[in-house]
């Protein structure tokens, strides 16, 4: 009886009695969700255009952030370092296309998936070799990102919002919006959408598959850089971040592998679900359930909608 009360009543009582904490939890969930969305977005871009399930997205986040800080530490001014990192991501995109995707064209999905594992290992080694494995402090100040927080006294308590988190939310929205415009309005964007449906269709638009691959990997690199800056500013830049990138997988499950809005909505659902679950129900299990909660949310969801949030119902044909 007591247990039932703790599971079904008590958390809601808590939400009612301390609304400021509830709002704060929602905010934290939202911000975490936005960051998950950004990682998932990188996955989606690449999967949509090249059918590659890019396991290396997580390490690209670390690599980009590490490169940014690394350049800065070598005396490059912050904005120039940002530019250099973007160039580095472009080089990476070219290298990936030339050295991995092109030789492996037409191979099975799992082979390409595996190749991105190889890429992950390579980037871990390469990143640590060049920039060192020790964690670095994100240069958010030098980049002009705000620090400090707003404290809103409300609801009988206060809600604290980090300026950097607000900036993260704004930058993420801008990024999604510009990607949306890019896909809808530009010739290359249309070609990208075409390639998602049929590779041959893309050729007829007059853009080669190779170019498209470079573009999507570059775009995913930029998204990774943005994610790395934001998450790096929250804690710091280290290889431990990589494991968090796995959280993008349940997000993808919810949102579907090819849907950009799906990645955003999925990320926010996972972020909110995880924080609320941990905060209100976690203590029942001795806390720390965040480790698997996201996956279980995704799993339960899948059992009812195997095609994901925005996916269409699959009709099997033979």
């Amino acid at each position: 009886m007591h247990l039932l009360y703790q599971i079904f009543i008590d958390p809601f009582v808590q939400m009612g009695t301390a609304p400021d904490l509830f709002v704060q939890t929602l905010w934290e969930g939202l911000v975490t969700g936005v960051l998950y969305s950004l990682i998932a977005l990188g996955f989606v871009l690449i999967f949509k255009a090249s059918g590659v399930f890019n396991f290396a997205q997580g390490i690209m986040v670390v690599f980009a952030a590490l490169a940014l800080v690394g350049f800065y530490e070598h005396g490059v001014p912050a904005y120039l370092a940002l530019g250099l990192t973007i160039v580095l991501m472009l080089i990476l995109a070219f290298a990936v296309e030339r050295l991995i995707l092109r030789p492996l064209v037409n191979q099975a999905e799992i082979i390409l998936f595996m190749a991105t594992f190889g890429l992950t290992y390579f980037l871990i080694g390469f990143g640590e070799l060049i920039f060192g494995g020790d964690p670095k402090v994100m240069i958010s100040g030098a980049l002009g990102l705000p620090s400090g927080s707003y404290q809103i006294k409300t609801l009988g308590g206060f809600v604290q919002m980090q300026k950097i988190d607000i900036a993260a939310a704004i930058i993420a929205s801008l990024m999604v919006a510009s990607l949306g415009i890019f896909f809808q309005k530009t010739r290359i964007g249309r070609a990208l959408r075409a390639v998602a449906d049929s590779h041959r269709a893309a050729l007829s638009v007059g853009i080669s598959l190779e170019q498209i691959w470079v573009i999507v990997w570059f775009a995913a690199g930029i998204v990774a850089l943005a994610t790395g800056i934001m998450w790096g500013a929250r804690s710091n830049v280290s290889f431990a971040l990589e494991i968090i990138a796995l959280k993008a997988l349940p997000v993808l499950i919810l949102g579907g592998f090819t849907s950009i809005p799906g990645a955003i909505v999925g990320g926010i659902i996972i972020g909110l679900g995880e924080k609320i679950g941990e905060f209100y129900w976690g203590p029942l299990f001795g806390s720390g359930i965040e480790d698997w909660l996201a996956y279980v949310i995704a799993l339960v969801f899948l059992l009812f909608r195997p095609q994901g949030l925005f996916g269409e119902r699959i009709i099997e044909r033979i």
Partner: protein
Amino acid sequence: MRAPSGPEIAVGDVLLSVENVSLSFGGVKAVTDVSFDIRKGEIRAIIGPNGAGKTSMLNVINGFYHPQQGRITFKGKARGHMRPYDAAYGGIARTFQNVALFRGMTALDNVMTGRSLKMRRGFLWQLLRHGPALAEEVEHRHRVEEIIDFLKIQDIRRVPVGRLPYGLQKRVELGRALAMEPELLLLDEPMAGMNIEEKEDMSRFILDVNDYYGTTIALIEHDMGVVMDLSDRVVVLDHGIKIADGTPDDVKKDQAVIDAYLGVAH
């Protein structure tokens, strides 16, 4: 090819009957109120232009799709909601329009999978692969080798089917269906994409199966010549509706059929 008196003498008891079956996918109607029957020992053809609902019909018969309306009676028993393997257990085997072989396996293994239903030895025996398990395996191998001989694919036994030419793949697929020793064999365009020699071979096999094993066959085919030569009775579908049913000769003369094939506006 067929003896002229074919249609009359091949008539046996009704093996399977389809009554008022309708099937739709989210509002799109694939099959509307279709009824026909298949009799024991006959070769029954289902024809019609593209998108007529032929393959959907086969999918309904072997339980892959569940019709919204109508009833299917197999061997005198009406079937409720069933899964495809129930159909397989009941004795319905099938080949597919786009070859649905197990591409990573050899031709021999593909045909052997057809025997899975008939194999009885449990997991532990399978683990040991000695004594009864091996005996069973060998026994079924004998049956499979017979089929392989019958279809003349001895030399490609060990080749992964993904590497075989299309015509041979179709033959292996027929072999896999035959290995199930079905009472009713559904063939979905068994001759699609074949050249004339291959078609002749395949026709020969189909007739032989019918004669030699006494298997009832329902087939979908586009090549009218083949259909007319092979089949005892023909049912014609168009836009999911049955427009004709009868002997090849009757169907050939049917005005609705001629219109459907020539694309006369309704």
